[in-house]
Every structure is written in C-alpha cells, then in structure tokens.
C-alpha cells in the first residue's frame, strides 16, 4: 500500500479485499484517500473534491479480480436509468484492460467514508468519477503487471497488460489476470504520481456506440452496452420494490393531507378487522422545516400490500389542521397572483450592469412578459419504497435512493444507532428525477421497523401518496422587460424571478432563492446587452419544495428562451439570428463575474461560461433541422438553448397545432455539447428522455394546491407524457467530443430548453404565445 504524504490520509477500513475475490476473507487493509479536512479554509475545493466524502481512487475499494479471472467493479453511484452502472464500468474495464464479457458490476452499499461521495444528483457521476475510476483501474493494471514481472523475474517495464492478460513481449509469455490476482493482492498500490493512464485512442469501450438502427456494421460493438439490460427485459432486475423476505410485513401510511398537520385522533377499529392487518401505528408529525424527515401520519402494517391499503382506507382519522399553520391556507391560484403582483415591484438585486430604468424609459420599443411554471411532481414510475429490518441493535435497509448517505445517517438518527450499525443496500431505482434524493420514505420504514419485532417491514407508497407528498418542483413567476432601439437591437433586459426556495426545507422562512438556485441559468444569463438587471423578489414556501430534474433551470430557461423569441419578434428578426446577436461575440466568461459563486461546484477557472459553445450548438441544431424552411399551415419550428450542469444544449422542435388545439410534435433535433463523451449511446438516450419529459412539462404536467392539499391524485389528473406525445422522431447531434474539454453533465441539461422550444414552435405554428405552463387547452377554440 502506498505511503502517506501531506495531502493523503491513511485510514483503517475493514472490508473484502481487492484481488481476493468474492470468497476472500475480510481483512484490515489501508484505504488511501484525499482528506478534505486537511485542506486549508482558504483553499476551496471544487468538483468531486468539494463534495462531502470527496473522491476515492483506491483500486482495493473498486476492483476485485477472482482467480478464475472474473472482474467485479464496485459501482457506488445510484443507477436510475442514466446508465452509470454501465458507463463507469466501461471506464474501469478500458483502463484495466478487462474483457467486457468477464466483467460484472456490484452495487456499493451506502458508505461515503469508504467510497467517497455517493450523492447521485447534479449530473455529476461521470464528471466527478471518470478520473478517480481511471486511476483506480490503472493502478490495478500496474499491480497486475508488477505481479507478472515478479513471476517472470523481468522488469515491470517489459510487461504489458493486454486484454485480460499480461504479456512479456520479449519472451512471448502471458499470464491471465486471474492467474496474477493472488500475487498482485500483496503489492503496494502505485503512488498517484506514478500512475500511467492509457491514451484515449487505446480505449475499446469508451466512446464506442452501437448503431442505434437495425443496420449493423458501423459501430465496433454489436449492441448498446447495458449491464442490467437482460435482467430488466426478463423481469429479474431488483428494484427497491422487489425486495422480498418470507417474514416481511408490508406497510402503507396515511400521511397528513397538509404539510405539518397532526393526527388529532384515530379510530382504527375497522382497519384492524381487515384480513391481514396486524398493527396500526401513529407516527409523530415533525415540526418544520420539513427537511428529509418523515411527514408523520398513521401507518397500517399487514401481511401484504393490499391488506395494508385496505386497512388504511378503513382508518378514521381526525387531523389537527391548526398545526399546519399557513400551509393549510396554501392555494396555488392565490399564490400565483401574489407573485405576479410582487413581480411588478423591485426585488433584491442579484446582478446589475448599466442603468436599466433609464434604458427602458428611453427605449424606442419596450416589451414585457410574465411567465408561469406550476408545481410538478417527479413521479418516478417506481413510487417511493423501502425495506428496513431492525434486529439485535443493528439495522439492515434496502432502498432505491439517490443519496445513500442521507438514507443511512437518517436511519441512524431515527433509530438512535451509530451509522456503523446501519447497513443500507442500494437497489436499482425505478426512476429518480430528484424525488429519491430525499430519504423520508426510508426513514419511515426505519420508524416502523421498531414495531415489527425484528421482522423486515416494507413501506410502499401508492401513486396517490407520491403525487400528494412529493418534494415539489417550485412554482415560479418570471417577469421580463426588454428595451430595443430603432433597429431592434436589445439595449436593456430586466428579469425578476420569484419562487419558493429549496432552502425552505432546511431553515425557517427563507425569502430568496439560494445561490445554487440563482446559479441555474438566472444570474448566469449570457446575453450581451448593455443594461441588465436581475432581481429576486421575496417568496414564501408552503409545501415541500425539492429538486426536480434540472431544478430551477426549468423556469429560468422557459422565461429567458421564450422572451428572447418575443424580442426577436418585436425586432422583426429571425429568432436564430437574434439569439446569436444577443450572445454577441465569442466570450469565455468567469461565472464569478456574473456574481455566481456556485458554478455547480466546479472550478470557475476551468468551467467557464463559453458563449462560443452556445453559438455552436445553436448553429448546429438549426442547420440539422433545416431552420428557416417553409412549413405547412399550422406547423412551425421552435428554437431554444440553455447552458446547465456545465453542458450546452440547443433544440429545435417541429410542432403542429390541430384545429382542436392539440399539439403534435413531429421532430426534435437536439445538439448537445458535454465535452468529452464516455458513453454516447447513453448520452443520446438521456437527451431523448429529457425531450419527452420536457414536452410533458410544456403541454400537460401541473400540480395545484387548494387549502394546502394537492388536488391531483393519480395519472388521470397529473398528466405525464405518453407515447403519442413523444416526437415522431428525435435526432441527437453530439458535438465537441474533445478529451481536452472538461466533462459536463448529461442527465439533466437536456431538459431545460425543451419547454420553451415547444412554445416557440407553437408560436411559429399559430401566432399564439404561451406564457403559462402547461399548455393544456389554451390552444383550443
């Protein structure tokens, strides 16, 4: 094992050993990792190093090789459809020289001390873990080469790992990885400075893509490398909901209909008569702020899910609504009106250049518009679910969770255990989209595990539970004003953004968006306009507000990209040309110059705001979509772009509006620049999926509250896209696949520009400007 240096910490970690194989005994070994605590306060850490738990690149943590040559890669990031279990394994297999057919993946438990950061959100998995995983695999490869050199009595420099074996070129001798595994296990991990990474062109899997159509022959792999693909199509993949034990009991919970309401009284006599119902448990309602805490309510524990649901239906609960305070009066119609009124007055100034009021007053032409985006629920197809077993003072848990550490430490909290006595196994996630970043449902199972005499308990959320008790995407009002000169050139831009903030989960009554929220496309607005003022008036929170895929980029992009199109219209100019004019000359802007100190946690000297890359995706997508061509009556092209999660996306939507007001999306062209691409096939699938989700945001999806209660119940009222809403064709155009470019995110940045592109296409088709989402029946009649 490597020795220490100033910035390296040696920690004792008990675990199964690298190269020892699955059957290997537990051993006390050394795990090396950079320790965040050693960094001076002034020395701000970025990227993976700046995340809780930081990064780990120890091969002993991530790579196991059995004597039979089978290679197991430990994946510590949560899989929710983005393909990280495949993509990180591609990275490791390439750098190790492993044959794909002999590589398996094993999901890591929640253990941030061992694995480094596991919080799978923010589109960070590949951009933070490509380098550490490469180093871990390269170290393992070098240890195998050293083991072969020792065996043959030759210098290691003469030994080279090929595909799943090490060769001595001079003598032609070879030894397989499996044959070397035992000897390699005893060797020291190479110094980090001595690690030799393979050149990019030596990769066999990274960057490769199966031809996504029936014709074969262009790609060097036969089908997409989906490590869980066969289990998924055969129905044997294990999601959180699929955890089963013979002695398991099933629970559903009647949660407070309004956030903060308490159980005043409960009559469970009828519930207990339901066949299979074993127990009814009242749970405390936690005080606000809501955090990740369970909401409280009344749980019914039964021998199967159906009995538990029937038991819940039979409960008679009186709720104390006074305990919910103002939340019990939350009405989204009224709230929206209040925000629209507030948007007429100045707010906290976030960024200002030039004299916006003077510019607006003296303009040849001014326009203004107010945009609205409603609350939405993430509604992953697998509703929240978790299993916990509490036995002998130790808890075992299984859950589909994006933030394993929050689940494990939260369980330790509700159970009064040390986290070392809590094992949280991370299953596949049946979708996440931010909902499963919050472990409230896991903690519920923890509370109920105290009631079941050591038997495992599964808490199953119904779809109604999920729709009623999401951590909702923030409702938002964005008001924009633009000043144009006689030539239509933009001279002034004022944007006021109003939404409840996610920080309301963690502190009492915050009134302004946090820096990480403003940094999602608001204060980073890139247009080159002489007078700009960006303001954030106050807004209260009366529901659980949380991350929804791409988060505040959604309303910011909707408003900014719609308004840019409105300005182009006012100027009498082509939208594409006007966007490029707004962007101005190519600039590489330090986000700090815009007052953004967040920058998605990345180093602002490396991750800049590059208007050249914005121009490139706009120019690419409009060329691919044949922008400017004549369209049939009732049909139009709409354009939008957005920069988020350090990636650049532009999209052209080809939409048709029928006489009945229905919207058909014929084509979507998406140009995407995330810098270097590891798994282009999964990048395309993320863009395709984001496009569909964005169409739903534009056309259908809305959550409303009345008297603090969510009015929608299930998919007949909370509408999400179905097959007929998807574009007939989606074409993805990946650009700038440059290993020298810092990696951007993939899972989220495809989403923000979709809704404004749809609405711009509707405008092109009909002349009707959509400023309120969703479209629903606004185009009828």
């Amino acid at each position: 094992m490597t020795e220490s240096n100033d910035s390296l910490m040696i920690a004792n970690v008990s675990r199964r050993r690298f190269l020892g194989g699955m059957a290997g005994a537990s051993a006390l070994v050394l795990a090396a990792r950079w320790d965040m605590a050693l960094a001076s306060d002034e020395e701000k850490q970025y990227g993976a190093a700046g995340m809780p738990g930081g990064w780990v690149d120890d091969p002993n943590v991530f790579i196991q090789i059995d004597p039979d040559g089978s290679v197991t890669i430990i994946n510590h990031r949560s899989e929710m459809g983005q393909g990280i279990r495949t993509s990180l394994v591609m990275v490791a297999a390439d750098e190790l020289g492993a044959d794909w057919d002999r590589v398996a993946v094993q999901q890591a438990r929640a253990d941030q001390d061992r694995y480094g950061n596991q919080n799978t959100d923010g589109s960070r998995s590949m951009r933070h873990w490509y380098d550490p995983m490469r180093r871990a695999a390269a170290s393992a490869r070098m240890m195998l080469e050293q083991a072969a050199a020792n065996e043959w009595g030759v210098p290691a420099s003469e030994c080279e790992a090929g595909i799943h074996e090490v060769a001595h070129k001079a003598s032609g001798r070879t030894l397989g990885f499996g044959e070397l595994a035992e000897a390699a296990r005893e060797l020291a991990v190479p110094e980090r400075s001595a690690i030799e990474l393979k050149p990019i062109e030596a990769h066999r899997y990274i960057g490769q893509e199966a031809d996504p159509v029936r014709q074969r022959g262009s790609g060097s792999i036969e089908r997409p490398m989906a490590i869980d693909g066969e289990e998924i199509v055969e129905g044997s993949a294990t999601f959180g909901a699929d955890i089963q034990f013979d002695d398991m009991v099933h629970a559903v919970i009647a949660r407070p209909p309004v956030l903060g309401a308490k159980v005043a009284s409960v009559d469970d006599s009828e519930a207990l008569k339901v066949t299979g119902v074993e127990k009814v448990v009242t749970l405390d309602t936690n005080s606000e702020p809501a955090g990740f805490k369970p909401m409280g309510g009344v749980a019914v524990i039964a021998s199967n899910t159906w009995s538990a649901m029937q038991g819940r239906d039979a409960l008679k609960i009186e709720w104390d609504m006074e305990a919910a305070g103002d939340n019990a009066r939350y009405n989204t119609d009224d709230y929206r009106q209040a925000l629209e009124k507030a948007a007429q007055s100045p707010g906290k100034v976030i960024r200002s250049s030039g004299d916006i009021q003077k510019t607006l007053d003296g303009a040849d032409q001014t326009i203004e518009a107010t945009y609205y985006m409603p609350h939405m629920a993430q509604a992953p197809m697998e509703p929240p679910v978790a299993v916990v077993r509490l036995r002998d003072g130790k808890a075992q848990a299984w859950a589909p969770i994006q933030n394993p550490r929050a689940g494990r430490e939260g369980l330790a909290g509700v159970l009064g255990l040390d986290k070392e006595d809590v094992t949280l196994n991370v299953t596949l996630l049946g979708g996440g989209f931010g909902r499963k970043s919050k472990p409230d449902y896991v903690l519920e199972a923890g509370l109920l595990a105290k009631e079941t005499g050591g038997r495992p308990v599964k808490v199953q959320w119904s779809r109604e539970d999920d729709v009623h008790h999401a951590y909702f995407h923030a409702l938002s009002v964005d008001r924009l004003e633009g000043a144009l000169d006689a030539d239509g050139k933009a001279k002034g831009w004022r944007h006021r953004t109003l939404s409840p903030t996610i920080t309301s989960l963690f502190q009492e009554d915050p009134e302004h968006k946090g820096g990480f929220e403003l940094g999602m496309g608001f204060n980073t607005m890139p247009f080159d306009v002489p007078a700009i003022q960006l303001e954030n008036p106050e807004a209260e929170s009366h529901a659980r507000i949380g991350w929804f895929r791409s988060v505040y980029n959604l309303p910011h992009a909707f408003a900014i990209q719609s308004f840019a199109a409105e300005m182009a219209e006012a100027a009498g100019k082509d939208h594409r040309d006007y966007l490029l004019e707004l962007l101005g000359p190519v600039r590489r802007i330090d986000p700090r110059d815009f007052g953004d100190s967040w920058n998605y946690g990345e180093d602002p000297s490396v991750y800049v705001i590059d208007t050249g890359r914005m121009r490139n995706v706009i120019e690419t997508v409009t060329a691919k979509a044949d922008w400017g061509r004549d369209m049939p009556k009732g049909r139009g092209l709409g354009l939008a772009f957005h920069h988020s999660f350090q990636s650049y996306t532009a999209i052209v939507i080809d939409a048709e509006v029928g006489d009945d007001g229905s919207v058909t999306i014929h084509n979507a062209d998406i140009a995407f620049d995330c810098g270097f691409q590891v798994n282009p096939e999964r990048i395309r699938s993320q863009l395709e999926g984001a496009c569909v989700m964005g169409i739903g945001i534009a056309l259908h999806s809305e959550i409303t509250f009345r008297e603090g209660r969510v009015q929608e119940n299930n998919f007949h009222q909370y509408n999400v896209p179905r097959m007929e809403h998807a574009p007939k064709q989606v074409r993805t155009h990946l650009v700038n696949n440059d290993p020298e470019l810092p990696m951007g995110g993939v899972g989220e940045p495809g989403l923000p520009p979709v809704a404004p592109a749809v609405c711009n296409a509707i405008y092109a088709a009909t002349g009707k400007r959509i400023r309120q989402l969703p479209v629903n029946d606004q185009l009828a009649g």
Partner: protein
Amino acid sequence: MTTLTINGTTHELDVPDDMPLLWAIRDIVQLTGTKFGCGMALCGACTVHLDGEPIRSCTTTVGNAAGGKITTIEAMKEDPVGQQVQNAWLDLGVAQCGYCQAGQIMSATALLKQNATPSDAEIEDAMTGNICRCGTYNRIRHAIHYAADAMQEDS
C-alpha cells in the same frame, strides 16, 4: 383457497377474491417482474397476459383471474414472440431505469401476437396505456417495428 395458473404453474392461494392480481403475483407468489405503478390501470406497469390478452393486474381481481392462464414477464424468455421483443429491446437499448419495461414488453408482445406488422398508429393505440417516465417511447416504437421485422425474417 383460490387457484391461479401462472406461467404454467398452479398456485393455491389463501387470499380474498377481491385482492388485485398484481398483489397476489408480487407479494404472495413473489414473482416481482410485474410492477406496481398506479393501482388504477393508468400506467400499464402491471401488465400481464390473461388467456393471451394484455390486462392490468392492478385492477383485475384474483377472483376474475382464477381459472384463466396468467402469463407474466418471467415467461417471456420462453415465448417466441416475447424473445423477439426482448431482443429488440436489448439491441436498441430501449430501457433506461427499466421499471416500466416489463409492462411495456407485455403490451408489445400481445400486440405482435395479434398484429405481426403494426403501423405507427397501431403501435400508439396498443401502447398508449403504458407510461415510461424516462421517456423511452421513440425506442419502444422503433423496437416493436424491429421485432416485427425479425419475426418476418424468421418465418
């Protein structure tokens, strides 16, 4: 006791007749490939075949399914059409999270058994009840055509 025949195996279950088939399959028989998504026949995640017809097991009671032949995703790898559909799903990389895909595959397989060469419109008609929140619809549509082509080539 209720007798259910699932994938050719007979199960004697002590459950109420009004229990949805979904929960009998998942919780009692412990075949977990069939998924819960909505409980109201709105999303299709729970789709199984009853005597060859695609049904929503979350709103079909055990009582109504007794006496019929129930087929779930776990049997598709033995089914000639199901195999083609699974293969198409893999070749085109359809799945993202995968949670809804068992239901999608059951709906697609039932469609192809009734209509070996469905049009886009017929595919949309057959699949509109199956929600995929990841948004894999384009690949699903493509994969159904792909499986249909493969079936033609094999016949």
